[in-house]
């Protein structure tokens, strides 16, 4: 990536705009970070986007970047840019709770690879953000530390599970955020909060230090206000990591360089199954985004990938099955909560009963059942075969398309409490996002206007594996045609995020 200072058209207030100014010595990292920390102090009591705010550590990191700039050293492509990090990414010595009582007091003895790479890029972690416990949920209501609220309407959810990072970026508390996406947990909250969120190709971003939920589906990815910033953050965290055995042995991505390539001659498939059942405003936004791509020179054609209709039920067998295995480690022995009992098995069971919240228990139960003797083939085995059908469906679609377009979510942000009693109604919020996790392909949600209540709408772009550059090209075109989104009700005006309404 080239230094942002030299990039034309990088608006101030964006991550790359800030980095350019810090690198050029026009503004200090300390000033940038202080401003964002005070915005967090002022606005987060209402939003609850952060589980931990790192005042001291962030200012110390900023001071070090300022020293490097003064000494003429390269402070990195994201120098001085505040980042909100989802609290399921391990941070050395800093609590990493997964928004669970189980890990409430746990301080990891190491950094996740993506956290190290943020530091190498000069970014400044300002805090750890709220999530649905262990990333299981679509509303951030399943947090042991209370729900995060949507900056556009505090009576509504920000989406989930990375709701804290999405809300923080939307409210201008940090220009960049990191999340994890197992079934839509970056894209869905990005859509509901009116920001850009990307799930990269499986294997392009290290999972080392990401607390595991469903290992064949989990992927770390960026939140940002702009497509360019999201691409820059992806480029900074991506690339091979020997600490993750599923990490692709490839050079670090350079998706930013594709941003101005346009879509002339590109073939886009408008996937019926990924938007037709959405609410009317969402459907209209998808069609308008399709028109924008066509106007910019892409060939847009309706297409059908009927297999994706089976993605949601398959996902809700596969992900809980993997989770039931991954979460077996929380047994009260090596770290985290322990509830004492006379024998080890009772201690395990009492610890897990006290440490896990309702949704985590529900998914462990579901996954354990799906894997249990007598049901394994009917549920887990069958879901794996359906996963193959979905992979094949996408392969067929990509024979005649370079990228696919649909909605990110069927609806805009729903009211807090609306779906907590009905798990399947909550799960339906992921219906358009889970197919990409099952296939492992990249996908991005980006804002495209608002509904009649002013709530943000997200449209989703999908590409074949390693097609991030295609995604970024398409997204840049859609972004430039998107109706402008008003500032959120809870936002930091100093950070280009508008005033309180």
């Amino acid at each position, binding site marked *: 990536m080239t230094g942002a200072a030299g990039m034309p058209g990088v608006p101030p207030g964006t991550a790359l705009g800030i980095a350019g100014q810090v690198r050029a010595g026009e503004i200090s990292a300390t000033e940038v970070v202080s401003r964002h920390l005070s915005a967090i102090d002022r606005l987060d009591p209402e939003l609850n986007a952060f589980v931990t705010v790192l005042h001291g550590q962030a200012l110390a990191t900023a001071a070090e970047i300022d020293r490097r700039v003064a000494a003429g050293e390269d402070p990195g492509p994201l120098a001085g840019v505040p980042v909100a990090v989802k609290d399921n990414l391990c941070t050395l010595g800093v609590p990493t709770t997964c928004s669970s009582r189980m890990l409430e007091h746990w*301080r990891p*003895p*190491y950094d996740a690879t993506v956290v190290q790479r943020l530091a190498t890029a000069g970014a400044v972690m300002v805090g750890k953000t709220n999530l649905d416990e262990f990333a299981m949920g679509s509303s951030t209501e399943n947090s042991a530390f209370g729900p995060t609220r949507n900056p556009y309407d505090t009576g509504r959810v920000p989406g989930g599970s990375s709701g804290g990072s999405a809300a923080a970026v939307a409210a201008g508390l940090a220009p960049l955020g990191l999340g994890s996406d197992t079934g839509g947990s970056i894209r869905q909250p990005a859509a509901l909060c009116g920001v850009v969120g990307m799930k990269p190709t*499986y294997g392009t971003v290290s999972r080392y230090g990401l607390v595991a939920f469903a290992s*064949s589906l989990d992927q770390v990815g960026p939140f940002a206000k702009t497509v360019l910033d999201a691409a820059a953050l992806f480029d900074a965290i991506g690339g091979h990591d*020997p600490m993750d*055995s*599923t990490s692709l042995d490839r050079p670090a991505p350079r998706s930013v360089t594709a941003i101005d390539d346009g879509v002339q001659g590109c073939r886009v498939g408008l996937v019926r199954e990924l938007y037709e059942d959405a609410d009317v405003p969402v459907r209209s936004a998808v069609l308008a985004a399709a028109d924008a791509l066509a106007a910019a020179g892409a060939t847009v054609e309706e297409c059908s990938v009927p297999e994706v209709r*089976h993605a949601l*039920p398959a996902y*809700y067998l596969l992900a809980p099955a993997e989770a*039931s295995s991954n979460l*077996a480690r929380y*047994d009260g*022995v*090596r*770290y*985290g*909560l*322990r509830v*004492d*009992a*006379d*024998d*080890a*098995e*009772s*201690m*395990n*069971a009492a610890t*897990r*009963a006290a440490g896990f919240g*309702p949704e985590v*228990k*529900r998914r*462990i*139960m*579901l996954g*354990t*059942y799906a894997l*249990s003797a007598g*049901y394994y*083939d*009917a*549920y887990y*085995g*069958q*879901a*794996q*075969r359906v*996963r*193959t*059908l979905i992979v094949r469906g996408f392969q067929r679609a990509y024979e005649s398309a370079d990228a696919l377009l649909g909605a990110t979510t069927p609806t805009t942000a729903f009211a807090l409490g609306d779906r907590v009693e009905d*798990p*399947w109604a909550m*799960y339906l919020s992921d219906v358009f996002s889970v197919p990409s996790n*099952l*296939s*492992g*392909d990249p996908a991005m949600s980006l804002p495209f206007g608002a509904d009649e209540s002013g709530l943000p709408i997200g449209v989703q772009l999908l590409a074949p594996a390693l097609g991030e550059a295609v995604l970024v090209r398409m997204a840049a075109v859609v972004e430039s045609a998107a109706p402008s989104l008003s500032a959120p009700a809870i936002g930091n005006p100093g950070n280009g995020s508008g005033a309180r309404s």
Partner: protein
Amino acid sequence: MAEPVPLTRQDAEYVARLARIALSDAELDLYAKQLADVLRHAAAVSALDTDGVPPTAHPLPLRNVLRPDEPRPCLDRRVVLESAPAAENGRFRVPRILGESP
């Protein structure tokens, strides 16, 4: 392939035991009902014809990742045990595991 059957309260108890979660009676009732509901939706998947379709466990063709078998630094034992709920003599301490009387 066996047809899936609805989840009963007895199934919920059995699964909770397998998963090592000491659920209350109220939780068992709730989860039996909610899991049955989710499995009803999952039944749509069970009904699909997948004869001859291989399973996909992972989006990547997984292969072993090897490196030279050379010692290298790892986390310090003291640091790791600091996170443990109970430790003794450089080891994790747990309640008794076997069923003999104390």
